[in-house]
């Protein structure tokens, strides 16, 4: 039981981070049908941003805010410089471009910061543990609590924005049918910019949480996490906000539970099993768990 509880907490923690990243993939895809592979690398940009600001003597909250601003700036520049000129060029062109942007970002940071692994040291407070039960054998660190609270809060906030604000409604309208939305006077560029701002900001927070939890970082850290978060967005139904959040949590939990419960020797293939689940989900629900029906692709 303790074993299960401990594994579940770790899984939820990893899943929360995947969820934050998957949302960014999903909302951008919803509007532009663009799979933005450079999205994962924004995690890395955010981590370096926060790291530099902390080294400059900023306190942690300000460093995180600064890092979010830096990451949003990167996201917007990428959108303006790489994706907007290609908006009418088709899905393959922007897909390849996003891979190019990803490689460019990694190599840029490799050049500037060297491939060295760096420390992302948070104050000792985050490593402190709370006992949840099981006679002291189920514990949770403050870092995990921070991850859960921040993720939950952000998901609630973004979901409110999407449901209630004018920009949010415009965003959903564009996701539904961007041509019709344009005809109704929705400014598509403003909506796209807004989607990139939200996506980049969430990726920035995810990056800081991830590096805070796992201590060290380097220029290539974002790619694999990005791929997994992309898979999470697909499981949930790419384009769907709730689907991305649910898919992220599901993927994180499955990944850890597979690693914990698969027999000795097979545990190492947990990622393969996770992707097996992806295939099974897609076989039965081709649009993902929360995906919209077919026919939306223009």
């Amino acid at each position: 039981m303790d074993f299960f509880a401990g594994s579940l907490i770790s899984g939820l923690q990893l899943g929360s981070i995947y969820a934050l990243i998957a949302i960014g993939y999903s909302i951008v895809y919803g509007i532009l049908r663009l799979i933005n592979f450079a999205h994962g690398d924004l995690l890395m940009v955010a981590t370096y941003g926060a790291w530099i600001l902390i080294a400059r003597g900023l306190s942690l909250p300000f460093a995180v805010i600064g890092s979010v601003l830096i990451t949003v700036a990167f996201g917007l520049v990428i959108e303006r410089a790489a994706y907007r000129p290609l908006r009418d060029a088709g899905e393959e062109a922007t897909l390849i471009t996003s891979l190019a942007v990803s490689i460019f970002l990694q190599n840029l940071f490799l050049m500037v910061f060297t491939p060295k692994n760096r420390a992302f040291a948070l104050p000792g407070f985050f490593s402190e543990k709370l006992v949840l039960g099981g006679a002291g054998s189920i514990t949770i660190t403050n870092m995990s609590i921070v991850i859960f609270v921040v993720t939950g809060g952000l998901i609630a906030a973004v979901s409110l924005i999407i449901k209630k604000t004018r920009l949010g409604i415009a965003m959903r309208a564009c996701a539904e049918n961007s041509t019709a939305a344009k005809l109704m006077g929705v400014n598509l560029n403003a909506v796209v910019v807004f989607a990139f701002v939200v996506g980049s900001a969430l990726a920035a927070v995810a990056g800081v949480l991830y590096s805070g939890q796992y201590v060290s970082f380097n220029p290539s850290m974002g790619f694999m996490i990005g791929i997994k978060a992309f898979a999470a967005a697909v499981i949930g139904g790419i384009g769907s906000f709730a689907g991305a959040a649910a898919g992220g949590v599901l993927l994180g939990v499955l990944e850890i539970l597979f690693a914990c419960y698969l027999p000795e020797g097979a545990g190492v293939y947990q990622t393969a099993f996770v992707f097996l689940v992806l295939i099974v989900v897609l076989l039965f629900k081709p649009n993902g768990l929360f995906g919209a029906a077919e026919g939306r692709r223009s």
Partner: protein
Amino acid sequence: MKKKIVSTIMAALLAALALAGCSSPSGGAGTATGNGSAEAPAGGSSSEAATPADGGTIIVGGLWQTTGFMADYEIPGSEGFQLAVDEINAAGGIDGKQIEYVFYNGQSELDLNSSLIAKLIDVDGAKVVAGLGDPNSAIASGTVAQSKGVATLATSSTLPYTQERVGDTAFLVPFGDNIQAYAAAEYAYKDLGLHTAYVVTDSTDEYTLSLSKFFSEHFTNLGGEIIGEATYDDNGYTDFSPAIQKVKALDAEPDALFFASFTEQGPPILKQFRDAGLGQPVFSGDGLDSVEIAEIAGEAANNTYFTTHVDYTESNSKVTDFLAAYTEKYGAEPANAFAALGYDAAYLIKYAIETNGNGDTSAEGIKNALDKVTDFEGVTGTISYANGHVPNKTVYICEFKDGTKVNLLSVVPEV
């Protein structure tokens, strides 16, 4: 290794999307070059001999992984090698011949290493190649060199059965994993009196696999018990909670932990185990030889012991001279023992040719000369290839303490 898998994923994704997109099949499905390998290999020629000395030149190749997961070891290694090449050339070369040194960055990618070593040998005309990266890459590129009859000197790969896998042109400058893992087991069992151990292994590399295998083997032979094992694959994987949960679910906590990992996973694994309340002594191999780990992991790195190739605090003149020369050239002390291994590799080539070469500097001549090396005195100890191409050398045991690396003792392996 990991990049290879990343590129495969990318290629698969591209292929899937090209098919799913109902677009013309001329999309770039097969052309995904992957992360990193798309850039031109960095590297170059640093031939000191713009005007060759009278005796001609010897072309020596370097295949260093100065980016990717092996960079922590191979950047210092390449710097040590470069330093030695410069010293040798300044002192008149090998048998009066200047070294013409050509090197490439293999980016820690298997396929790139295989093609670059072919380029070093066929295009640049290298007669011997040093560096080679982790065992996976070293076996891949070593096999290519074997087919061309050119000797390779691996400076960071410690796989003891490299010669069996590759052939007679493969030489190791460091000791093998069997020796270092045995030393770690002895230290844990005999010196510290630890009788049970839990082993965590990165399952994607020959190095980590062989390290764990030899540790478990010797620890059990000594009378200890391996009470459990966990493996992980290092593809962007930094969450060790499954291994932690497994250790915590054991009836009794182990006396010791053994981690077979590279530097990248060092800080996360230490931090997570310590955060989970597992403060046991940790043992590992030369993969953890990096002060960076102690700096990044901080207190979590305390009580961690690892084996490595040299003790830079020794007063032996080989060591002090190397340290002085390295610090003067690069402005800082070497990050780990791999700088000294790179340095030794260049002098080993010089020693072999001058002692056993009879003036033959063909690829075959150099290979035969290396074969006969006995008692070469390097910074990292004495190298002899009389009993196989993996030298028996002294193992140094170090400990991380409050952000620094402390040398504890040296162990001379029993042959």
